[in-house]
């Protein structure tokens, strides 16, 4: 206590100034604690959202990186706003000081005395301010170990998660499920020089024209399997290809087939190309690669499927490969587009199916090619 008194004399500060300075200092410390806490939390949320969106991009459907980043950065922004709004008032700081240093409401009373103009209770006023001033000197040394917020391991984990989420976003995403490498190169070479995204090309084509692909396959003379894909101006319906093949052993066969044909990009499908509506004889020139597979005893029944059109929104919007006006009446352009379409038509409608359906279709075509 004597040390504290001598400190007061040494500092030559009035109790009022001493109290105000101390409360201000503690307030800043508390605010930085709150700031760090909220920023840390919002960073963790940011990481979570980045990861979530990255996973969506990778496994479900492709997302725009810009929008994902904006959504994720909103967390940081809101964290910043909250931390500013949570800045403690002087009274709240006084509460905190009393709680932290077992002040028994000393600082609250002192602060209120400083702010009040009432002349009553003068008898204890000076004494209490003096006590508060002494307490400030005493507690000032303890603020070094004050409850400063330190980032924990979760923050480092969140940093890693952000990087991972960002990496996922940079991936082509669900487009990987369809082998688009050949598609895009073919389109770029033959048809459109200004476009880089082959999937956009086909989605635009599906939008503008009605595409119907039918493939009829007969397997060992037992069953006549037919396969139909149709896109009717935006209405999408999916039917399960295997709706008639319900027995477990058949399903197992198909699963095995799927596993075997997982990496088969495109098989030789010249046998069905003549059945593709709207595609000319140039389909024979398509650069299909052949690969054997282990399809055995595959039985298919005629199934009718329609392409989904929920991803088809193209007309004259910027960023898309070309619009209707670009190729209507332009025969050279139309031919080149149709060539590309014939080569990759399978890809276009496959992108509207689930992965198992796509694999099934690939396997089917390969099987047909093998039988030929």
């Amino acid at each position: 206590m004597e040390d504290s008194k001598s400190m007061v004399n040494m500092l030559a500060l009035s109790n009022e100034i001493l109290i105000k300075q101390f409360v201000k200092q503690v307030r800043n410390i508390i605010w930085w604690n709150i700031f760090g806490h909220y920023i840390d939390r919002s960073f963790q949320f940011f990481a979570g959202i980045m990861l979530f969106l990255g996973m969506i991009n990778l496994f479900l459907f492709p997302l725009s990186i810009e929008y994902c980043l904006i959504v994720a950065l909103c967390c940081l922004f809101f964290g910043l706003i909250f931390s500013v709004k949570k800045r403690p008032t002087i009274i709240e700081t006084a509460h905190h000081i009393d709680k932290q240093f077992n002040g028994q409401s000393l600082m609250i009373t002192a602060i209120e005395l400083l702010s009040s103009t009432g002349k009553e209770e003068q008898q204890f006023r000076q004494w209490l301010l003096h006590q508060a001033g002494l307490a400030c000197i005493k507690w000032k040394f303890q603020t070094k170990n004050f409850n400063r917020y330190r980032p924990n391991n979760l923050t480092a984990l969140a940093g890693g998660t952000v990087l991972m989420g960002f990496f996922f976003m940079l991936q082509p995403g669900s487009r990987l499920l369809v082998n688009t490498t050949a598609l895009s190169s073919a389109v770029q070479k033959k048809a459109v020089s200004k476009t880089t995204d082959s999937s956009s090309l086909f989605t635009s084509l599906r939008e503008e024209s009605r595409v119907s692909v039918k493939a009829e396959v007969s397997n060992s003379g037992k069953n006549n399997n037919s396969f139909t894909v149709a896109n009717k101006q935006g209405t999408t319906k999916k039917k399960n290809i295997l709706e008639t093949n319900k027995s477990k052993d058949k399903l197992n066969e198909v699963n095995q087939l799927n596993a075997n044909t997982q990496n088969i990009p495109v098989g030789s499908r010249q046998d069905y190309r003549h059945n593709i509506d709207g595609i000319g004889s140039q389909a024979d020139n398509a650069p299909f690669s052949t690969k054997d597979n282990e399809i055995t005893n595959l039985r298919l029944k005629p199934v009718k499927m329609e392409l989904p059109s929920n991803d088809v929104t193209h007309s004259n919007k910027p960023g898309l490969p070309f619009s209707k006006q670009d190729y209507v009446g332009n025969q050279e352009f139309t031919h080149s587009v149709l060539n590309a379409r014939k080569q990759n038509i399978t890809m276009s409608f496959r992108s509207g199916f689930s992965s198992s359906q796509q694999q099934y279709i690939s396997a089917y075509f390969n099987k047909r090619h093998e039988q030929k």
Partner: protein
Amino acid sequence: MRIVESLNLIENRIVCFQQDIGLLKKKLAEVIVGQDQVINDLVIALFADGHVLLEGLPGLGKTHLVKALARSIDLPLSRIQCTPDLMPADITGSEVLLKNHEDGEVRIDFRQGPVFTSLLLVDEINRATPKTQSALLEAMQEHQVTCAGETYALPSPFWVIATQNPIELEGTFPLPEAQLDRFLFKIIIDFPSVDSLMEMISVSLDNEPADHLFTILTRSRIKQMMEEAQNVLISDTVRRAAITLILATHGNLEKQSDIARKHIRYGVSPRGLHAILKAARIRALCEGRGHVSIDDLQQVALLALRHRILLNMDSELDNISVDEILQKIISLWRKNLPGS
């Protein structure tokens, strides 16, 4: 220099208050063994200029405590043993016809009852009829007695310490709410621990320790201490916290807890707010502080509020005590205070 002297003077006054109260508690604790908390609460209530209702089983030393207190503070003690046939006039006093034998003059004179004292022990107060109990109302609240149109002031300080037995119901009249509200504290005396009983045997088996008590505080000193307590600072934050606590006991107000809504029929009156703040001031001084803290409120809340709450029928049927409900309310109140 003058400011420094003034500060030292105030500090000395607070320290002296603390020492005097500490000495009184210590001496009482030597007589009433194992009831330190009861003694502490009793002293706080009395120096806050309040009345105390002591509730406990027979033989726990209630009367003994009051007698020891009276010896320690050098104040006149009167005792009223309440019975169902006790009349209000037996407490307040009455006008009597007096005849002077020398000159044969007859005159009406007011004979003061036992209420005209500083420390009034009302033993077994719940045995008196409501009519008699209400005779104390004016004395307790206004420190005066009105008889036959005449008002007589009571000495200062005037403290009523009433005792009651919680288990005897036959032939008793529970105190009405208006009467209960006039007591600052209701102190429940629990059974002492084994160690306390052992110590009690060694202290009071063969002699009466209260006989050896001497006066610690005089009347003037007591009055001075009570005046000093009025200088204790209560910040607006603490006042607001006390109000919040009072409102939390009201089941029909907006700012309430679900517990209060569920169990309490009538909450604490504004007189309860006075009681809690007065008691908190004394506690702060006992702790050597010149200002009331939230902790002070919390410590005295149960004592000051438990007899001011009326439970509803459901709580009584469920056998839930007032103390349980109040403790929940207090803990919830403390948790919801700003800065907590």
